[in-house]
């Protein structure tokens, strides 16, 4: 687990040109995602800083779904995730952190509206779905099972 010196990153960001960050981002996305170029520039200073510091990781915010009562909440909700891992791997990690039984089923929603395709990599998902603030928002919720 790597901890970030937040003050450092914050300062560093101040010296960075936003345009550069965005071009950097585009470059990083060339592995298949052209969509990103159409996207609006990242508006949040925080995300810009992260992108510069960790060009191979994507900033993700993972939250419990509004109405979820069955699943526990995560201690931390901001993550920098290696861009090459798949959503299925990421889901495995989240489940581990939630410390729930192996048979408990849950699902991830991106931006509270899109179902996360587990075969895709985080990079692909990030390219398609990141918020204008530069973060990828993911919520988790129990899978409905009753009949």
């Amino acid at each position: 687990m790597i901890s970030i010196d937040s003050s450092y990153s914050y300062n560093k960001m101040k010296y960075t040109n936003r345009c550069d960050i965005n071009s950097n981002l585009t470059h990083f996305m060339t592995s298949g995602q052209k969509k990103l170029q159409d996207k609006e520039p990242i508006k949040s200073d925080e995300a810009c800083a992260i992108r510069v510091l960790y060009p191979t990781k994507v900033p993700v915010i993972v939250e419990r779904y509004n109405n979820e009562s069955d699943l526990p909440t995560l201690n931390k909700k901001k993550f920098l995730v290696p861009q090459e891992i798949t959503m299925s791997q990421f889901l495995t990690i989240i489940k581990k952190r939630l410390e729930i039984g192996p048979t408990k089923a849950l699902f991830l929603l991106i931006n509270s509206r899109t179902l996360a395709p587990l075969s895709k990599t985080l990079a692909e998902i990030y390219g398609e779905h990141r918020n204008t603030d530069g973060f990828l928002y993911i919520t988790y919720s129990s899978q409905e099972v009753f009949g």
Partner: protein
Amino acid sequence: MSEEILQFLPFKSFVNSSFWHKLAELKIDVLKLSDTPETVHGFYSSFQAKSHLLEVDYSAFNSEFTPPKNCFPVQGTIYNKNTIEEFKNCNKVDLVNLEGQKFIEDLKNGKVLKDPWLLFRFFILSFADLKCHKYYYWFGFPCPMSPTFTKNTNTISLKECEELSEDSVLEAFNGIPEKSFFVLTKTEGHWIGKALADYNGEPDVYFCFCDPVEVGLEQPSWLLRLYAYFLMKTYPALHSKSVKFLGLRFSSTSDISSSLIWNLVLPGDSKSPEEEIKFVGWETNQNCKMGPRIASMADSMDPAKLAENSVNLNLKLMKWRLLPDLNLDVIAQQKCLLFGAGTLGCGVARNLLSWGFKNITLVDSGKVSFSNPVRQSLYKHEDALSGKQMKATTAADRLKEINPSAVTKGYVMQIPMPGHAVGDSMRETITKDLETIEELVKNHDVIFLLTDSRESRWLPTMLGAFYKKIVINAALGFDSYLVMRHGSSRKENEASGETDYGDLKCVNGQNLACYFCNDVTAPGDSMKDRTLDQQCTVTRPGVSNIASSYAVELLVALLQHPLRENAPAYFQLTEKKVKTSVPEGILGIIPHSIRGMLCNYENILPAAMKFNQCVACSEKVLAEFGQTHFEFLFKAFESSKYLEDLTGISQYEDLENDIIECSDSDF
């Protein structure tokens, strides 16, 4: 034009539905197994005649028969047989001759002369299949094979006749009691009506009859043929003479100007009295061939059929008024297999009936318990009382009670589940169950997953994918629901994953996810980890109704799509309004899944791609089942870890160290 042979219009039977109702009633209550011929009555009319009809209705069996207004009575006999064989084997030539002889007898003994309406008679050979509400019948209007009648002069209408005025004919008609056949004679310059019995052979008379033929047709009805035969037999003095017949035809305004006058040469009676007379008169069938007719009365007599037709009405009105392209046949033909007969199972089954689905099979292992009836709409308190009523069979019976034309069946059976090891003692039973389930999946078109656990959905999901069935899945949370269609495994064309569709993303039906595609855990014994209140389904009552309705509506929309389960689903990446609208079928959009919440009354319609390592629908799983069949299933039942290993989801490297976790206060 003269010397032309006159053609007659044969009578056509017209049976009012009430006749069959009355016959059915009589057969059951009075006649029973008796097949003695019964006297019946029919009627015809020359008032606004539409065709040359002989009608029968419920009054046909009355002992005192009164024909409807402006109609003339006809006497007949019904030969109602007890079996279709007797009906078929009855000698038709003998029967028409037998009936014809009655006519000849009445001629000889003077009955006809006294009551001329007896000139015309009919008979019915019938068989009433009361069970199927089917009536086989054959009308006969016996008439002797007579010499041909030739026309002496052209046929003229009453209007064109110089010596007769319409008023004088009407006056005579109104003044005479027996109106069906009578004579017009001239007495002291006046035309007066006379009964046939009073006719004394004077020349220059008009033989009148009420002709049940539409105004405008030049031929007379069969009545003239009988009339002429009667005159030939009764008045030898008329032989080889020219005889005038007036066929009265009344228009809607009781106008008789279109009545026709035929001038015939009455031939001599060439036959010696001893010679056998042959008769004709069997009616043709709808196809104008010699044969009986069949009246299928199920539509108005069979309560089940009545119900079925009424059930279909709403659907047909929908088609006729709003959706002309709606294909109701495809709906009626689908065979639906429902796994689970609880709240969702009951709800889905009822909605299927509403949409006109006919074939519904339910699989469930449970008994109806006291808590069920209030939520599970196919059960009653009484079912729980006995403690023995199984849900699957009870539900199947109820569906038939609701719609008798439904074909339903219930199978009481546990669905084998991954992570639920099968002991040796159970192996044989489970194998049998598996065979049944596999057979059921094969024999149905649509699989509904409506069970109350995740693991029980695994086997039907896998089998549905393997046998390329439409799979509709509905699952409930406390106040949320998920309704989805599983990705199709029916390969139609090379389909790519996601494609752009304007501002939307499009996922081909073959690439859509299944219920298990969005998690990385094989289903296991989830019940073990649950507390008691979780084990008993705790949901807001509304969610199952909503979800079961959506499930059926989604299926119907899918069936109407030309690609069926291969119909693509669309989603948009952002929440912003986009220009591209989702392509619609005749019933609107066809989403991949519907996730809804009661807490905010909102639905989202996510579409997602298949997970290539899915524990239920991925290539690897299906291939393994294809190769080792039940052996694979038992391995999966033994331990859910097996499925995780097979698909590789258990082999993810530990990536923990590459993840950076930040606090909110960071940055």
